[in-house]
């Protein structure tokens, strides 16, 4: 049925007369668009499959950023600390909070539609949607994957990821790869074993499931003592990356459980605290690299794997850069998983004296959670966390939000209880002295060398992530509410806007009708900025 058809039908009924048009094509986000980085759209959680969060847009640049002004604010009702990363397709922006999706005119901020899920379990955060063809996809606090019609917000299908009554939920933005929706789970601190699923994006049928905790007899199961694998954790609560040429999906895996007491789970506890490379067609494991074997500090390795092609030791390599919660910056060969380089990106790191040639941490004896408490640096919150890093091909720098600080870490003999209860076996008390500081740091891609840093003065924690643009800018949302543009090559602050709310989300950029916008979720609002004229 065309526009022409329906309006002609109405005319026959004597109701409505209108000019008759050839039907416009339905808005579609194609696989090709998903493969192309740097369009006017922002189509995936980290802007492109390689997760560089680098946009080719440069209308807003080091020379014009002075004229960057707020264009609109969209208030998300009842939100407090949004972590949603807006997705923008053809002038429509999609933002979320737990159980809710909003479609907004990306030029004006006016709402187009909203979706509210019932029954609504209270569990957060939600980090955003994925988009493909005429649907948007998001995951819910009751562990469902929901497909909505992108034009109307109507529910098209729902797929159950896991049992919410067991304690499962899902906060991460899904990812679309070749017509499949990739979605994961969250409750690693509850002793529930994680998964990474692929669903047919058209029908919602589950196509494969990767289990990060191997079952007895499977490779890796020997790294779990006794029955400890049964409550092993290993969840997938952030979004991964994808290399179309290698056809490999990269995803970070969370902490083992119980978080702070490893006595009951002796062994390396694969594939927790690892990045896994999967065949997106089958979900089969191609390779893995474990950053923190037998982790005792809840240092989830879910931080975004950033894919860069660059010369390393004289040869062009397909690289993966990853700043881990454990305080080390890693460079891997993403075709094979081979460790190439690792170095600390925080100064306060006392649990390991370095990495072996294979990338395994060299442990400092005794620096681990104890019954009486031991000072461990970084703290459990980590040197990095969910706030996305960025990479600029123009500067060759890898940008990361780095938390300096330590915690007094304790362990206990807590045992697992089914039903979604926490299974952490205690935690740490952050040492909030004058060494507790947050920085935006620029690292040389291949050496990890600190090239510049900018302190987020007045912030008591991470805040939001980073966005690099071809305009030579690095956008940074601070926990204290400042939204800042730094000069990408040297970290000099060129522009700032005080949003009045804590920022815990990553910024994006997009263009509508040739005009560039920069947007970020701040507290309970989505704010979008553009040049004055």
């Amino acid at each position, binding site marked *: 049925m*065309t*526009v022409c058809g*329906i*309006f002609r*039908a*109405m005319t026959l009924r004597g*109701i*409505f007369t*209108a*000019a008759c*048009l050839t*039907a*416009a*094509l339905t*808005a579609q986000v194609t696989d090709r668009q998903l493969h192309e980085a740097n369009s006017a759209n922002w189509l995936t959680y980290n802007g492109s499959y390689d997760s560089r969060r680098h946009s080719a847009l440069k209308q807003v640049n080091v020379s014009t950023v002075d004229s960057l002004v707020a264009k609109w604010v969209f208030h998300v009702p*009842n*939100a*407090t*600390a*949004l*972590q949603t990363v807006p997705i923008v397709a*053809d*002038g*429509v922006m999609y933002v979320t*909070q*737990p*159980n*809710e999706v909003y479609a907004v*005119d990306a*030029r*004006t901020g*006016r709402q*187009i*539609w909203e*979706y*509210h*899920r*019932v029954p*609504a379990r209270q569990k*957060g*955060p939600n980090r955003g949607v994925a988009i493909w063809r*005429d649907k948007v996809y998001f995951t819910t606090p009751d562990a469902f994957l929901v*497909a909505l*019609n992108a*034009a*109307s*917000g*109507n*529910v*098209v299908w729902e797929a159950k990821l896991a049992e919410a009554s067991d304690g499962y939920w899902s*906060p991460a933005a899904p990812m679309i790869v070749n017509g499949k929706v990739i979605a994961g789970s*969250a409750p*690693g601190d509850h002793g529930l074993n994680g998964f990474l699923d692929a669903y047919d994006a058209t029908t919602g049928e589950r196509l494969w499931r990767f289990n990060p905790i191997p079952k007895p007899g499977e490779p890796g199961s020997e790294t779990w003592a006794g029955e400890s694998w049964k409550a092993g954790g290993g969840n997938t*609560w952030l979004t991964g990356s994808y290399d179309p040429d290698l056809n490999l999906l990269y995803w970070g895996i969370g*902490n083992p459980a119980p978080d702070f007491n490893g006595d009951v789970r002796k062994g390396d506890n694969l594939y927790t605290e690892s990045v896994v490379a999967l065949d997106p067609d089958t979900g089969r494991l191609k390779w893995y690299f474990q950053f923190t074997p037998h982790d005792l500090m*809840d240092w989830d390795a879910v931080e975004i794997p950033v894919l860069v092609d660059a010369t390393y030791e004289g040869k062009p390599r397909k690289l993966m850069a990853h700043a881990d919660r454990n305080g080390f910056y890693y460079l891997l060969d993403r075709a094979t998983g081979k460790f190439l380089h690792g170095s600390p990106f925080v100064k306060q790191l006392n649990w390991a004296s370095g990495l072996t040639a294979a990338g395994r941490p060299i442990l400092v004896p005794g620096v681990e959670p104890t019954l009486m408490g031991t000072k461990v640096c970084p703290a*459990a*919150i980590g040197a990095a*966390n*969910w706030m996305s890093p960025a990479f600029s091909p123009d500067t060759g720098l890898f940008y990361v939000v780095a938390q300096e600080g330590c915690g007094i870490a304790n362990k206990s003999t807590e045992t697992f209880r089914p039903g979604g209860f926490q299974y952490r076996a205690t935690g740490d008390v952050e040492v909030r002295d004058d060494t507790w500081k947050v920085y935006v740091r620029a690292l040389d891609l291949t050496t990890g060398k600190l090239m510049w840093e900018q302190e987020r003065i007045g912030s008591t924690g991470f805040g939001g992530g980073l966005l690099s643009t071809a305009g030579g800018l690095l956008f940074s949302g601070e926990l204290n509410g400042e939204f800042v543009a730094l000069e990408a090559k040297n970290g000099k602050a060129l522009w700032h806007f005080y949003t009045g709310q804590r920022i815990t989300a990553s910024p994006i950029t997009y263009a509508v009708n040739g005009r560039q916008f920069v947007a970020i979720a701040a507290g309970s609002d989505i704010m979008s900025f553009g040049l004055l004229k």
Partner: protein
Amino acid sequence: MKPILFAVLLGAASLVAQPPKPSNPLGDAPAVAESGRLLYNRSCTSCHGPDGGEGARGPALDFAGRRYFRVSEAAIFDVIKNGIPGTAMPASGLADNDAWRVVAFIRNIRATASDLVVPGEEQNGMAVFTGVGGCSRCHMIRGQGGVLGPDLSSIGAQASLNRLRDALTKERSIPNGYRPVTVTTLKGEIFTGVARNSDAFSLQLLEESSKLRLFDLSEVRSAVFSKQSLMPHGYDKSLSKTQFQDLLAMLSRQTRTKVKATLQGENEVGR
């Protein structure tokens, strides 16, 4: 002191405790509600409108946008028997059993369609929806259909049967977000659809093809809104009696809920 205090509390509790509210001794079967409707139309329409609609001096009893304070069977019975002091609502003088019949009728017209037993074949109703009725061109049920009109996946749980019937048979006002509009741009392009949202500066147009067009009104020569809904009516005449009843029955059984919820999302996963 403690035993005395306990006894005092017990005594207070027994004073506070209310007897269970009486429920309708005649039940709420369709026949009871229908007898109540006839009684209501004889006894109450000097103020209220017929069949529970709005009257010259009394409000409608099933108006969707109105919040009613008397909703339980006992509360409605009390109003019929005793009136509402300080208002024009008098005691009706109906005998108890007749008052209960009217209670059944009022509860019936306020019920959502899914609460009622609506005769008709659901499967045939769906065939009408997607076929001769043309409903699915604009409406979606569980992922199938168009987007120009509201999603009907939970309409049975949202609307009363009267409202459903009215929507299919009477011309009604256009809900926000569904007003037909024709937009002519400065370049002379013409677009038609419904205006999902508009103000003095922008307009969101949704075409039947699901294409959203977002206009800055500085780029628009004219936006002409229709005062008439795209929703056809008169289905009771254009469909056979069986087809109409099957369609009504199918719609009454659509109960996938879509209700607004309030939530806060501040927990930090992974911490």
